[in-house]
């Protein structure tokens, strides 16, 4: 055996053995049955062992083990470059805290580009809950509710701001609906005349919405007309005495339109230092009617969620079966809270979460303890999630879910089963075909194919790459392509043999000629694979990874490994026959 052949043979052997060794944990992980995993739950030592093995085995993608892939877009409007970057990193950190507390194993959170965050949550049971947890800004704010005397002026300003839109909005079908409904609501809770008088004393002009409250609730025919002049007030139902903190309500079907107007950039310009905020939830007033309270509050916050040191879900003592979130303020927050509550006894304090008010209790006296609660009709899960969100902190910017891909665990294991069986049957078919077509040389080809898969899988395991369903497809395709290299070589050798060359010479020149073709042909596929890698997101990337690695490993097995075997087999000078 000459020196070069020795070196190549040694190299091949080492690579193959290293690959097999690298795949050991994967084999081990596969050999642990689900029942065994279940049993290990009670045994922390065994659990740690299994986790260790899993960590070294080939990682399965979310599509194979089930899980959620989310792309979150961070709203960076109005931020400069450094603020944007800062916001992105802080969002990532806070999301990490939230997920960490949510109890998902091995979450992955990475920033993507300048405004996006990619979140991968394997083995997730409740995607809806996870989305709520990640997508919420969780901005907790305390503001003073403005006195009722200021409401009228604010309403007038709103109507003024949106008057030009009124014609257009009145034509919308929702507008008709809105007009139909107030009657029922007002029948249930009649407006209180004297309260109106108190609010609207000074200016009972035709423009005064309060003066026309009766019209609003009773007069069907003029409603179109009214809505035209009062595009905002026309959507409201004004009811005194229903709640102490506010007389304003919105019918549930109008909530979206009202919110739209509140979000309009004209609103803050017009209202300046006050703003309207909707309640988180509506009040059922019977007859299938739900009214959503609307509050007039200061834009200035007296306290925000930053000052929170702890938040915990507790059952609501006032409402059995309902949960609330009790929070504790930092000492600075507590001092501030004590000061504000001390100065505003008898007024209402609105507690809002992401711009919606959860409650607006009356301040009965100075609160020095720095403790409070957020109540609403929360379930236990909702209250614990809210507590979690408040503990992890508010996001410095709003986020939107821009892309989501969720695979249930059952589909994941189905996919593995199908993918593996496709790979198995495909390979077996190719192997049989090669043996049938090339006889003894076919065995060499088969060796190359099998080694190719082993090396490819070892590379995946070693470099911590993720195996996905498209990735399995890539492996299957690689098998098809690996055959090609061997076919090219074998066909060349046959050709050379036909020219009556010796076996040794045929093998040598067969490989020499085929090598150039194989490299040229594979580089082009590698170009396609490389582009897929570069452009690919989620599903494509896994495919590109296995395809590209597969091309490289198949070139190695075909050009180096089989050549070593063939050269060793045909080493003897006198050998007359070759089975190919």
């Amino acid at each position, binding site marked *: 055996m000459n020196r070069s052949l020795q070196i190549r043979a040694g190299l091949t052997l080492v690579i193959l053995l290293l690959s097999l060794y690298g795949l050991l944990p994967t084999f081990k992980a596969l050999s642990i049955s689900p029942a065994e995993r279940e049993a290990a739950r009670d045994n922390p030592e065994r659990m740690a062992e299994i986790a260790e093995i899993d960590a070294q085995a080939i990682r399965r993608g979310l599509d194979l083990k089930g899980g959620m892939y989310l792309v979150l877009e961070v709203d960076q409007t109005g931020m400069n470059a450094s603020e944007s970057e800062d916001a992105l990193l802080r969002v990532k950190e806070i999301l990490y805290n939230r997920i960490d507390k949510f109890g998902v194993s091995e979450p992955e959170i990475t920033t993507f580009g300048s405004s996006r965050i990619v979140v991968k949550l394997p083995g997730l049971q409740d995607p809806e809950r996870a989305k709520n947890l990640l997508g919420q800004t969780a901005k907790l704010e305390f503001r003073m509710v403005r006195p009722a005397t200021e409401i009228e002026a604010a309403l007038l300003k709103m109507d003024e701001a949106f008057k030009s839109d009124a014609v257009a909005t009145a034509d919308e079908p929702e507008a008709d609906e809105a007009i139909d409904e107030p009657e029922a609501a007002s029948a249930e809770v009649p407006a209180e005349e004297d309260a109106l008088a108190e609010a609207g004393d000074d200016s009972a002009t035709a423009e005064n919405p309060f003066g026309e409250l009766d019209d609003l609730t009773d007069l069907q025919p003029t409603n179109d007309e009214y809505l035209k002049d009062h595009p905002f007030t026309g959507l409201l139902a004004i009811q005194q005495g229903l709640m102490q903190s506010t007389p304003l309500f919105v019918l549930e079907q109008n909530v979206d339109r009202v919110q739209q107007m509140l979000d309009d950039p004209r609103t803050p310009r017009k209202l300046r230092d006050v703003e309207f905020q909707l309640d988180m939830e509506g009040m059922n007033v019977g007859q299938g009617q739900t009214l959503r309270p609307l509050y007039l509050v200061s834009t200035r916050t007296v306290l925000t969620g930053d000052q929170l040191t702890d938040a915990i879900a507790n059952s609501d003592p006032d409402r059995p079966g309902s949960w609330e979130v009790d929070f504790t303020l930092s000492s600075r927050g507590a001092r501030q809270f004590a000061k504000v509550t001390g100065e505003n006894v008898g007024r209402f304090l609105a507690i809002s979460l992401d711009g919606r008010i959860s409650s607006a209790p009356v301040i009965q006296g100075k609160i020095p303890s720095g403790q409070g609660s957020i109540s609403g009709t929360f379930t236990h899960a909702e209250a614990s999630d809210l507590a979690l969100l408040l503990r992890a902190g508010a996001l410095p910017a709003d986020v939107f879910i821009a892309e989501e891909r969720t695979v249930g665990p059952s*589909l994941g294991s189905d996919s593995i089963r199908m993918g593996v069986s496709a790979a198995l049957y495909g390979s077996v078919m190719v192997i049989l075909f090669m043996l049938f077509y090339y006889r003894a040389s076919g065995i060499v080809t088969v060796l190359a194919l099998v080694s190719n898969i082993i090396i490819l899988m070892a590379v995946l395991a070693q470099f911590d790459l993720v195996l996905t369903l498209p990735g399995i497809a890539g492996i299957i395709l690689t098998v*098809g*392509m690996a055959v090609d290299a061997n076919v090219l070589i074998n066909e060349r050798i046959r050709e050379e043999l036909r020219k009556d060359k010796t076996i040794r010479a045929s093998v040598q020149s067969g490989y020499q000629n085929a090598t150039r073709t194989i490299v040229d042909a594979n580089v082009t596929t590698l170009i396609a694979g490389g*582009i897929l890698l570069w452009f690919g997101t989620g599903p494509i990337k896994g495919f590109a990874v296995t395809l590209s690695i597969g091309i490289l490993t198949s070139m190695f097995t075909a050009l180096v490994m089989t050549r070593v075997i063939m050269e060793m087999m045909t080493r003897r000078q006198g050998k007359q026959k070759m089975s190919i």
Partner: protein
Amino acid sequence: MEFFKNPKINFVGGMKSAFIVSVILVGLSVVSLVIHGGPRMSIDFTGGSVLQVKVDPVPEVADIRSTLEGKGYAGVQVTEFGSADEFLITFADPESTTETLDAAQLLLNDLREGLSGSQIELRREESVGPKIGSELRTAAINSVVAALALIVLYITVRFVFRYGIAAILALVHDVTLTLGVFSLLNFEISLSIIAAFLTIIGYSLNDTIVVFDRIRENMKLRRKESYRQVINRSINECLSRTMLTSLTTFFVAATLYVLGGPVIHDFAFALCFGVLIGTYSSMFIASPVLVWWYERRIADKKRAAMEM
């Protein structure tokens, strides 16, 4: 064993008929694409949501559709998916980024409410906002174009420019026909189908280059033969390898189609079709284009010589 012992098929002679067949097929593809208003894009590119649900007891597709329409979801597509008890619900809501994504969850809740007697398991959900959708569309187009450009470059470096053009013509042919088949069968073009396209491009090229390589070699060895003869000989010499490789690759793609499960069904279908069409195009499009180009150039030179 051998499929072909010293084959002498006149590929170049059959070039005209192959051209006609290809032109007709490409024409049909284009017509189908025009009639359908371009390829049918999946939610990956348009934005929207796909839900794969398993329902027990199994309802009719029409039941699910009417339940959803009753809840105000107009334009929802419902199809059986893979097995009889699984359904794919697709809907595009290009309104806004956030609402689309909440919409999928709302739809599931509404469906659970509407089919209250049934157990509904969410097997898979994919939602893409319109912004990401249009970005993915741009990226997909860029990637196909970039792949084609780089490949021409590579072939130009390794061979000569006209080989590159011939190879690209064959590739454009392959991609157009695959798009056409998808359009005719009303299949959707999704991210994974783009991956399949790029694989087809790589594969078809692989085939073409093997033949080109042989042409290059034979041009040096057989200077006495005409260009046509050299090319015909080269295709014939590669025939055994071409058929063998195509067959094995088709085998594995077909296994993937049959056994790989519904999620990669369309992807595997594209691969199967691409292997067939790629084999055809490397024999009947790429190499004959070389002949056509060469002979035109000769004719031009002759004409130029005569005019002088």
